[in-house]
């Protein structure tokens, strides 16, 4: 504990030490997070010497607009999410490391996600130490936070009604072209069913930014999302 406090004090020179310790503890165990970060370090660096590698460096990631690190060549998917207003607050960061594709379709971050809530909390506590003035730090203990994009096996097991999906799809095809053409509006044709389902749930929970999609997904039931995923997944 003493060592953690020491680390926090060093890194949080700009904020009050007591406040910093308290907030850091609320997210998770930064010291343990450093160990978890080893799994990220193949692609990402953080700290005073950090540079962009396969992935961008993560200094100051909290509260930064997505894809905002000038000089890094981001994927079109994450640039689109950034244009839509994706900002790396704690909630979105947690959702992203839980399942990158749930938050950003077409991301190049080839990482299956951290399933363990404690691992996520700890690694975020560690990363937070490299951001100056993060906001949106929750009051509750990390264990009290719901998982953002994790869907129950029951939801993932719903078999979509293709015919219903075809009817519902007519609302989507006002903007998204059925043949997969994408200019200005992304293609939703031929996605793996599970990717489609988690993306729609992420919009419904308003983790993914985009007011139109949040609104459209907001009134779809679990069954309707499954029906759409089945229909669009089956299109060539």
């Amino acid at each position, binding site marked *: 504990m003493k060592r953690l406090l020491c680390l926090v004090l060093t890194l949080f020179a700009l904020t009050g030490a007591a406040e910093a310790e308290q907030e850091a503890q609320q997210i998770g165990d930064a010291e343990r997070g450093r160990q978890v970060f080893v799994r990220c370090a193949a692609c990402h660096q953080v700290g005073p010497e950090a540079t962009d590698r396969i992935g961008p460096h993560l200094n100051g990631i909290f509260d930064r*607009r997505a894809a905002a690190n000038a000089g890094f060549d981001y994927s079109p998917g994450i640039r*689109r999410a*950034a*244009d*839509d*207003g994706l900002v790396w607050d704690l909630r979105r960061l947690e959702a992203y490391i839980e399942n990158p594709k749930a938050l950003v379709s077409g991301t190049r971050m080839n990482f299956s996600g951290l399933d363990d809530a404690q691992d996520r909390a700890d690694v975020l506590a560690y990363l937070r130490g490299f951001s100056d003035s993060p906001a949106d730090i929750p009051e509750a203990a990390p264990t009290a936070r719901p998982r953002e994009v994790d869907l129950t096996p029951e939801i993932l097991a719903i078999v979509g009604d293709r*015919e*219903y999906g075809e*009817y*519902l799809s*007519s*609302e989507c*095809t*006002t*903007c*998204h*072209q059925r043949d997969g*053409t*994408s*200019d*200005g*509006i992304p293609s939703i044709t031929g996605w793996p069913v599970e990717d489609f389902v988690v993306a729609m749930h992420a919009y419904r929970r308003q983790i993914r930014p985009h*007011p*139109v999609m*949040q*609104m*459209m997904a*907001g*009134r779809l039931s679990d069954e309707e999302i499954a029906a759409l995923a089945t229909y669009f997944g089956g299109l060539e």
Partner: protein
Amino acid sequence: MKLNRRHFLGASVATVATLSAPTVIGQGKPRVVVVGGGAGGATAARYIAKDSQGAIDVTLVEPTRAYFTCFFSNLYLGGFRELDSLAHTYGRLAQGGVNVVHDWAVAIDREARTVSLAGGGVLAYDRLILAPGIDFVDGAVPGWDISAQHAMPHAYKAGSQTELLKAQIMAMPEGGVFAMVAPPNPFRCPPGPYERVSMVAHLLKASNPSAKILIVDPKEKFSKQALFEEGWQAHYGGMIDRIGPDFGGADVRVDPAAMTVAIDGVVEKVDVCNVIPAQKAGRICDMAGITENGWAPVDGHGMQSRMDENIHVLGDSAQQGDMPKSGFSANSQAKVAAMTVRGVLSGSKVFPAKFSNTCWSLIDTEDGVKVGATYEATDEKIAKVDGFISQTGEDTALRRATYEESLGWYAGITKDIFG
């Protein structure tokens, strides 16, 4: 059982001849006639033909060979689109099984269930879908009528009127005045007049920066007002003046010969005058006797006329409740109507009606904003469920993304409408 063509033609002629044969499913192919080939009508025709896979005969009656979308026509005025990019033809609908008839519907006999065409033809229907868009209320702007639309264009049905208006703006003298007479509610495309003002300002800022824009408006408030006013201030400071009802905006008359506009009795000389009169349902709805106070009341569950269950009304003409009159709305309503009509005529599954709408507007280069909502059918009306609107003070990246999204939407919806 498959009917051959000869058999079907015979049956169809016989039905017309008896003038009151009831619909008996299975007796012959059920027939749907759609009047109006815009965002509502073309979508409905295309979806019924596509989804019934030949089980329902679909005829679309549309006078023009090439349809110019009213949505995005403001972007042509602003120089962001070519007029040709707004034109759509009906070849793919025809290839998709829709019988496309380029003619005017001039009479509807609801007893006999027939539509008469200006060219002399008569079409029998089991279900009729009316999607004729808007017409203007006679005498809505004193001094203006259809004979004055050359001097003072409305440009609210896109095409030659839009071209004319743009040419007039380009020919304005230095420091001249562009006036717009804005319409009262309800009207097609609620943000439309204000997006148009933005586009005219964009054009004039480059070619004629000392020119002025005057909006004469009978309404207290308008769609996306805070967003437009913020944008006008930021991009076109001092160029645009709006006279609302408090200052006589509801008391306007025009003199097309003198090119003057009298506002609350005060006469202004103007160089271009865009008169957008008060609107009503396309006249064929009146002729069918299904209107009330100018619009055609419908039941949102299937877009059926409240006055005739065999007629569905889509888009601008329909008085349905909370949805704005927009191409997006018409397209959304068309899919519900298509599903309902197929359910009635071919027994296909009918799901609960869902509607949505989003309207994008361009304020200046890459400065796009949007407003949208979802809707559901209640017994009383189509009711709003949820909605959103762009915020003032958004950053340029988001505004640019919104504009680019609108381009994607235009490509998507026109493919959804016209195939």
